[in-house]
C-alpha cells in the first residue's frame, strides 16, 4: 500500500487476472475436481484483486469516500471464502456456486475495471463518471431517502399496475367474448391504445387532483393497452372445441367465460402482463420526474439537478434491482399459474 513501485505494475497485470481465470475455468470441464476448485476460488480471488487495486488507487482519496467500498469488497471476500468452506457439506450451495461464481467474479472484475478507468487513470471526466466507490458511498449516505423513494415508487407502481390490469382484464374479457362489446370497444382500443401513456402527461396534470393520482392513472393507462389487447386475443382464440365440450357438459355462460375461456387465454394474458410491466416501468419514471415529489424517478432528476452523479448512478443501481425483482416475481407467478404448461411450451 505504501510502496510506490507496485501500483504501476499491478494495475497493468491484475485486471487481466479475472478474465484469465474465467477463460481457464471453462475448458477443463472433464476434470470435475479442478473445475470445482477454480470456480470456488474465482470470487475470492477477484475480490482480493479488486481490494488490492482499490487500496492502491484510493490511498490519495479522502477515507470517508472510499470506506464503504472497501467494506463492501471485504464482505464479498469473507462471504465467498466462508461459502467455499461450507460448500463441501451443502450440496445446494455447491450447485449454486458452480453456476454463479464465474459470473459474479466477472462482475467484481468489472467493478475493478470501472475503478481503474475512473479514479485510477482518470480517463473519464468528473463529475459525470464517478468511481464505484463514490457511487456506493452516495448510496450509503442517502440510504433513508432512497428507501423512502423506493417505497413510494413501489406503491405507485403497484397501485397503477393493479388498476390497469383490473380494467384491462374486464375490458379484454368483455371485448373478447361479446360480439357487441367487440364492435363498440375495439375501435376505441385500437385508436387510443397505441398512444404512449407518457404523451398523456399534460392532460393527466390537468385532470388529476394531484400528482400522485396522475402518475397512478398514467401507469394504469400504460398497462391497460397491452394487457387488454392480449386478453382479447386469448379469449377470442379459445379453441372452439373446448367450448363445445363444456356446453355438452351442461356449462352456462359463467362457466364458459371463467372456467374455460379465461384459463385458455391465460398464456396470452401473461404475455400482456409482461409487456404491460415493461411499459409501466417507463411510465412510472417519466410520471415521477414530471409530477410527483418522491420516488426513484424524482430522485434521479433531483440528483441530476445538483450534479450529484454518484447519486444518479446509485439510483440507477437501485432501479435495476427494483425492476428486475418485480420482473422475477411476475415470472415466478407465471410459472406457478401456468405450471400445467410445463412440457407443452418452452418459453
Amino acid at each position: 500500500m505504501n510502496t510506490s513501485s507496485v501500483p504501476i505494475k499491478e494495475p497493468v497485470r491484475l485486471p487481466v487476472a479475472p478474465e484469465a481465470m474465467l477463460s481457464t475455468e471453462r475448458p477443463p470441464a472433464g476434470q470435475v475436481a479442478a473445475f470445482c476448485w477454480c470456480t470456488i476460488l474465482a470470487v475470492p480471488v477477484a475480490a482480493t484483486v479488486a481490494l488490492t487495486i482499490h487500496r492502491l488507487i484510493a490511498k490519495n482519496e479522502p477515507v470517508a469516500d472510499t470506506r464503504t467500498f472497501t467494506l463492501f469488497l471485504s464482505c464479498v471476500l469473507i462471504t465467498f471464502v466462508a461459502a467455499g468452506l461450507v460448500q463441501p457439506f451443502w450440496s445446494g450451495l455447491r450447485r449454486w456456486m458452480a453456476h454463479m461464481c464465474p459470473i459474479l467474479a466477472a462482475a467484481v472484475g468489472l467493478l475493478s475495471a470501472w475503478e481503474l478507468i475512473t479514479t485510477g487513470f482518470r480517463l473519464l471526466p468528473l463529475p459525470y463518471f464517478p468511481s464505484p466507490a463514490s457511487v456506493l458511498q452516495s448510496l450509503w449516505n442517502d440510504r433513508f431517502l432512497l428507501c423512502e423513494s423506493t417505497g413510494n415508487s413501489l406503491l405507485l407502481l403497484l397501485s397503477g399496475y393493479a388498476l390497469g390490469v383490473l380494467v384491462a382484464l374486464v375490458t379484454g374479457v368483455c371485448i373478447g367474448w361479446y360480439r357487441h362489446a367487440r364492435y363498440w370497444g375495439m375501435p376505441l382500443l385500437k385508436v387510443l391504445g397505441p398512444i404512449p401513456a407518457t404523451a398523456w402527461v399534460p392532460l393527466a396534470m390537468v385532470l388529476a387532483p394531484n400528482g400522485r393520482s396522475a402518475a397512478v392513472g398514467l401507469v394504469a393507462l400504460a398497462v391497460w393497452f397491452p394487457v387488454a389487447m392480449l386478453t382479447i386475443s386469448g379469449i377470442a382464440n379459445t379453441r372452439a372445441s373446448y367450448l363445445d365440450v363444456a356446453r355438452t357438459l351442461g356449462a352456462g355462460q359463467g362457466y364458459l367465460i371463467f372456467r374455460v375461456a379465461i384459463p385458455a387465454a391465460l398464456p396470452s394474458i401473461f404475455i400482456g402482463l409482461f409487456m404491460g410491466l415493461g411499459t409501466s416501468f417507463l411510465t412510472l419514471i417519466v410520471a415521477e420526474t414530471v409530477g410527483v415529489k418522491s420516488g426513484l424517478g424524482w430522485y434521479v432528476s433531483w440528483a441530476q439537478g445538483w450534479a450529484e452523479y454518484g447519486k444518479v448512478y446509485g439510483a440507477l443501481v437501485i432501479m435495476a434491482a427494483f425492476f428486475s425483482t418485480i420482473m422475477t416475481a411476475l415470472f415466478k407467478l407465471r410459472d406457478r399459474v401456468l405450471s400445467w404448461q410445463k412440457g407443452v411450451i418452452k418459453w
Partner: protein
Amino acid sequence: MVAPGSGHGLREGSSLRLAGITKYFPTPDDPAVRTHVLDGVSLEVAPGELVSLVGPSGCGKSTLLRLVAGLGAPEAGELWVGTEPIRAPSAERGLVFQDPNLFPWLTVRRNIEAGLSARGVLREKQHEVQEFMRLVGLEGFAQAFPHHLSGGMAQRVALARAMINHPRVLLLDEPLGALDAFTRMRMQDEVLRLWEARGITMLLVTHDIDEAIYMSDRIVIMTPRPGRIERIIPVNLERPRQRNSAEFLQLRSDILELLHFASRTPQATAERQTANGA
C-alpha cells in the same frame, strides 16, 4: 352379449328420433353459396341401442352428431331425445371427439370433475368422481396433467368426463380414430363395457368398418353431400363378437361394396347448390 334394453346393469339410455333433418353450411369463400350437408335424414334409435354412422368423408356424419348434441340447429327437421325436442346443448347428451379435448390446465381428476362443476353439482356428486376414475382405470393418474397422458388414456378421461353426467345419449365422433390399432381394439372393448354397464344409447361416427361391425347393433350407411341415409344394416352377431368369424367378414365385404357404390352415386357430383336453388 345382450340385446339392447335387455341388459343387466343400469338402463340410463333414452330413445332418439331424427325426422327429416336438413342442414346447409355457408361456403367459406362465398357466403351466398351454401353447401347442402344433410338432406332429410330420418332415424330412430331405441333406448340403449348402439348405432354407428358410416360413410365417406364429407357426408355430414359429424354434423349430424353436433346437431344431436345441440351445437347448432338444422334448417329443417326435428330432433327428439325421449319426449323432449333438442334445442340446446345439455349434459344429457355427452359428446366425445376424436381429439380428447381435455382442458390442459386441469389435472385428470379436475377434468373428470368438470362435468359436475359445469352443472354446479360438484359438491353433491363428489363421491362419483372416484367411481368414474376407477371405471376407466385411471385412479393412479388423478394428479397428472393431460399432456402427460397417452392418446388412449386421454380418450378414457374424455369418456369419463362425458359419462359422469349420466348422459342418456352418448355421442362419439370417431373417438378412437387417432389411436393405434392395438389401443383401439382395447378401447372398443372398454366402450362396450361402459355401454353394457350403464345401458346408454350411443351414436358412434366412425371410418372404420370393423369397428362399426364389432360394436354396433345397427350400422347406418350414408351417402356424401348432401348426406342421406343410404342403407341401415342390422348386425345380428352374438356378443362378444369375433373379428375373424365368417359372418363378420362377410358383413364387412358387403358394407365395403355398398360404400364403394355409395361414393359413386350421381348425387356425389352435385355437391353444391345455390341458396335459392335449394
